[in-house]
């Protein structure tokens, strides 16, 4: 299993290939479309991360100290970024997730997706992923 840092570098390389924002966003849209849907039974209120506009459902399972995430969103752009987060964090150890420095979102030029406009649940999503990890790590 590659480390969180290695996977982030890989994503940066992927995004380096794109010449303009349009290609970048089209790639994100594709990632969003390709992300396997979360099992319907996990699409419940308790798993809902409330942003102001797009909803994100996050489910976490532990497998001998590692955490497997699955997630979904009703907005495709959000789902694309969710797919990237899952690629980076899912399957990693609880300890590594809790201490992960997730700088790739800024570096791939999507920092407006993390702005404080309350427009999406992304920041809350990262926080929630880390909270799961911290809880299991203890």
């Amino acid at each position, binding site marked *: 299993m590659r480390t969180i840092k290695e996977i982030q570098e890989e994503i940066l390389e992927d995004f380096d290939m794109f010449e303009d*924002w*349009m290609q970048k*966003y*089209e790639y994100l*849209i594709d990632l969003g479309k390709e992300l396997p849907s979360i099992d319907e039974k996990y699409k419940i209120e308790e798993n809902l991360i409330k942003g*102001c*506009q*797009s*909803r994100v459902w996050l489910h976490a399972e532990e497998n001998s100290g590692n955490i497997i995430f699955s997630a979904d969103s*009703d*907005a*495709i*752009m*959000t789902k694309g970024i969710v797919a990237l987060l899952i690629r980076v964090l899912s399957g990693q150890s609880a300890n590594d997730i809790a201490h992960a420095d997730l700088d790739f979102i800024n570096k791939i030029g999507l920092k*407006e*997706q993390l702005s404080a406009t309350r*427009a*999406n649940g992304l920041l809350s999503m990262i926080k929630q992923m880390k909270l799961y990890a911290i809880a299991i790590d203890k």
Partner: protein
Amino acid sequence: MFDVSKIRDLFPILKRKVNGRDLVYFDNGASTQKLHSVIDTVSNYYKEENSNVHRGVHFLSGLATDKFEESRRVIRKFIGAKYDHEIIFTKGTTDSINLVANGFRSLLKKGDEIIISELEHHSNIVPWQMCCEYSGAVLKIIPLRDNGELEISKFESLLSKKTKLVALSHISNSLGTINPIKEFIEKSHKVGARVLIDGAQAASHVPLNMQDLDVDMYCFSAHKMYGPTGVGVLYGKEDILNEIPPYQGGGEMIKEVSFKKTTYACLPHKFEAGTPNIAGVIAFKSAIEFIADLGFNTITKHEEYLLEYATQEISKIGGVRIYGTSEKKSGIISFNIDGIHPYDIGVLLDKMGVAIRTGHHCTQPIMERFNIPGTARISLAIYNTKEEIDVCMASIRKVKQMLS
């Protein structure tokens, strides 16, 4: 002859680029851009006139006070109110409504009723819920029809001797519906109810005359009228403003203070505790003068043309559904595209330099009524152009292509 390019020259921000494109600003329902004259007045105030109002004996305080009160006069005239002291300066429409709702709760008793509608902004829902919670009054809701108009017959059946207040939007921020407020006011007065109108979306788009409307209270915000943020107005008839107890205590709003008994100042100072947004109030006058000089004939003609053209063009795009198709409508188009979340539309349009609003627009009951998570909303203003609508429509087509 109306020349929109001359109007655009008065708004410096309209020349800037966003994401490498010419800015197309279609989020005027949230806040309009600012006039050069407004910006200069704010700047000049701090450079040349700054001092506290109503207190000092010195030159600058007198100057600031004169200008501040001059704004009140200009606004009084603009909205056709009877007296200057019926104009109360607040932070904005939300603040104005809260002022009334807070004071009104002591005038209500258990079982009294307040009527609002299904299309209200949260600012005209939550203060009344709080008011009812405190006073034991009951909140009644006028339902919405599919086209975004209110059910007037249902409103009539809700009215009774128990109705103490009716609080309604003049224009819906989500759907663009222009409510027939004069009719609502007349019907409410027949049962002795007072009427408050939330005019946040109306004051820069349709002519207002408080005496002609015979409205008891009317609220609006400067920042949606090409003026500064943090300034709003509560208009109230003299008698109702005298009846409502003060909202906040402090300086300026008192007649005499002692530990036995404090008496309150007369209108309008009774409701203007603390140092107000002096620069903002003074600059608001520049915005009002711009609107008044242009005239509502010109304004409504241009904005109605834009609305009609935009509605026609967006309807040509397959899979688009417009929410709010009332007969009388202001320059607001709320829409969704089949199978696409409004958030995705907003994010991608932004990358193309087009600023719109997405989400529930602080009107969750409307979204629930139509069973949608939100809408994408185009809201127009006097400086918008046909060419901008063309850019926006081409961008929406591109977004649709990217997302499907």
